[in-house]
């Protein structure tokens, strides 16, 4: 079973600030539309490898100006639309 970890933000600017940090620290990430299981509001979240979760949490503690709404880990599953 594979998992993905998602970081949610109160605003897209927080997300973009974290993106900058992740880029600097060379931590792999993808900006994604927030999964519906996590929030009903459209908007961005950042997907990371669950193994990097602790590293990212440390980064967030060191940079308290970046606000987040939570970090969640979900089972990876892709729905196939074209069959």
């Amino acid at each position, binding site marked *: 079973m594979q998992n993905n970890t998602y970081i*949610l*933000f*109160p*605003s*897209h600017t927080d*997300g*973009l600030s974290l*993106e900058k940090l992740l880029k600097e620290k060379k931590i792999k*990430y*993808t*900006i*994604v*539309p*927030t*999964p*519906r299981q996590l*929030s*009903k*509001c*459209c*908007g*961005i*979240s950042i997907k990371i490898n669950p193994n990097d979760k602790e590293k990212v949490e440390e980064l967030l503690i060191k940079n308290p100006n970046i606000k987040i*709404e939570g970090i969640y880990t979900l089972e990876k599953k*892709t*729905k*196939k*639309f*074209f*069959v």
Partner: protein
Amino acid sequence: MADYRELWKSLDMDLEKHDKLCEVLPEFYEDVYLSQKNRPEGMNYYNFVISEVHGLRIKELDDHKQNGGKVLGTFCVFVPDEIIFSADAIGVGLCGGSDFWVPDGEKVLPRNICPLIKASVGAKISGTCPYFQSADMLVGETTCDGKKKAWEILNDYTPIHVMDLPQMKRENDKKHWKDEIKLFMDKVEELTGNKITEERLNNAIKLINRKRRVLQRLYNTRKADKLPISGKDALLITQIAFYDDLERFIQKTEELCDELERRIEKGVGVFPENTPRILVTGTPMAIPNWKIHHLIETSGGSVVCEETCTGTRYFENTVKENNKTLDEQIDALTDRYLNINCACFTPNEGRIDDIIRLYKEYNADGVIYNTLSFCHTYSVEYKKVKEALDKEGIPVMMIESDYSLQDSGQIKTRLEAFFEMLKERKSAYAK
């Protein structure tokens, strides 16, 4: 998580129905886009734009309106953005690429017209497209009969200005198109209360040209032997170019191109070697219509170029800059726009030349001629295009399809067989 619901409510949207639309997007985008391997890092920006497609950008349009600016919604690459932006208005491409809106469209339209028209009208009357809801004025054109008559229906919801695009390219047609651009200018000045001066128009011409040049730079990277970016991703970028903030879009796309050019230097590609290279030609693909690209790239092919309105027709040829007088500037606009080779013209031999030229420029192996169901101009034009391509020895296959996913299996079989054929040809030539 930013809450845009208040904003949507203020735009008089159907929140409940809109929520159903939002529900599909993350999973659909995951399946089509995020599942791709080795995507360029720079694609994160476009992931961002798509995630905020009904959020941040709508907020920006709202801010612009709060400051007294106007928003114009457009449908077609013939509408000169330069005029809109020179009056400090914002032009945005409108929704029309999803099956989601078709049932609402069919409430007021016959079933046997193209899905793009049905979806656009459906998006408006269902109140689920915030771009439609943000528009102070719509701008239509006369590129096909279906759209021409649909404007009359849309006009009941939002005022619409229709530009009468000539259907031939004779001298008097040029004069007529120039007059149409002038009429449009008057209309935009009246709506915005801003006077379009030589300086403003020249600045707008330069700005839109910069957007065209960066798209051309992006497409140039697709001529490389090892494709640094998938066709699907390139299509997404062109689609986003229609409504994103111009300066930001240009900057981010330049950054992406830097990355792609580095990839080419290093020989990094996103497809296995010997993946057939496909030129797609035909009708426009509005967000989130990624169907044909997705089917091609999951059936063993790669898309290297689009000869479509969401492809080269959108950005090839720039408008001559630094003309001194308004009249000369409008002449330059007339020339650039009337040079687009749309199937609404008769004859339209320029398009055949374009297809053959692009096939060679992008080193393609075959052509997929894609038309939306019931698009008469493009489906009729297939015969002439096929004859010309046969003469050149260029393999071509026609795929006619709408937005539904039910014919995916059948299309995939045809695509796979086409690619098997292209590979066989290639190895026969190699011998």
